[in-house]
């Protein structure tokens, strides 16, 4: 099963994938396409990926979570294609018996995904122009 989807992300399904009666804490991160003043009027983002590698890299990251936080389960999806402003591009859920592990594992997946997973985005600006973006240190989306 791929971590990459072309339809809106179903966060409830991700939650149900990781939920279990002994996992009392779940941390979710949802990254959405944003329209911010400094960015100009972004109306959507086109996400593309090197899909075989992106899936493999997500799989490795999930395996690393199991090594580092053995009691913690994670589920995630990244959306590809045209994602309108306000919709989610990535969602990560981590469930654990310990809330600090749930937070840490969720954060780990988000940070590693941004560093390692070959996905690119092109901002579609109102009026029809477009520009490629790269992840900088602390910007989202």
């Amino acid at each position, binding site marked *: 099963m791929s971590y990459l989807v072309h339809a809106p992300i179903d966060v409830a399904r991700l939650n149900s994938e990781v939920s279990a009666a002994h996992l009392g804490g779940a941390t979710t991160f949802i*990254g959405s396409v944003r329209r911010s003043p400094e960015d100009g009027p972004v109306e959507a983002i086109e*996400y*593309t*990926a*090197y899909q*075989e*590698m*992106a899936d*493999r*890299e997500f799989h490795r990251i999930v395996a690393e979570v199991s090594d580092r936080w053995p009691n913690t389960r994670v589920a995630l999806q*990244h959306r590809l294609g045209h994602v309108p402003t306000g919709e989610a*591009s*990535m969602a990560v859920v981590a469930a654990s018996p310990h809330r600090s592990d749930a937070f840490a594992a969720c954060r780990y997946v*988000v940070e590693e*995904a*941004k*560093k*390692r*997973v*070959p*996905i*690119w*985005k*092109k901002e579609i600006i109102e009026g029809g122009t477009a520009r*490629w*973006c*790269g*992840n900088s240190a602390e910007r*989202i*989306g």
Partner: protein
Amino acid sequence: MSRSFGTDSTGSTISVCLRFFARYAEVLGTDAVTVELQAPATVAHAVSYVRELLPNGATLPEKPLVAVNLEHVLPHQSIHDGDELAFLPPLAGG
């Protein structure tokens, strides 16, 4: 397309597939080429090939992010016949 690259055309060569993504595919006007490089070769040799011989190749950085067979690698990594090299613009997932 298939091309060869190297100073000594009498030595053995390897054939590798170069794939380009996102902005790189746009500026190069292609998303894949198969090329022949003189053995032994490294990722850095393949990068030089692209920058010197492909149209608009010089617009790529000298040390782009490259993956070989789905793994991130460094420039000195050896490459072998049949390898797939992916040229990755700055990542932007998330």
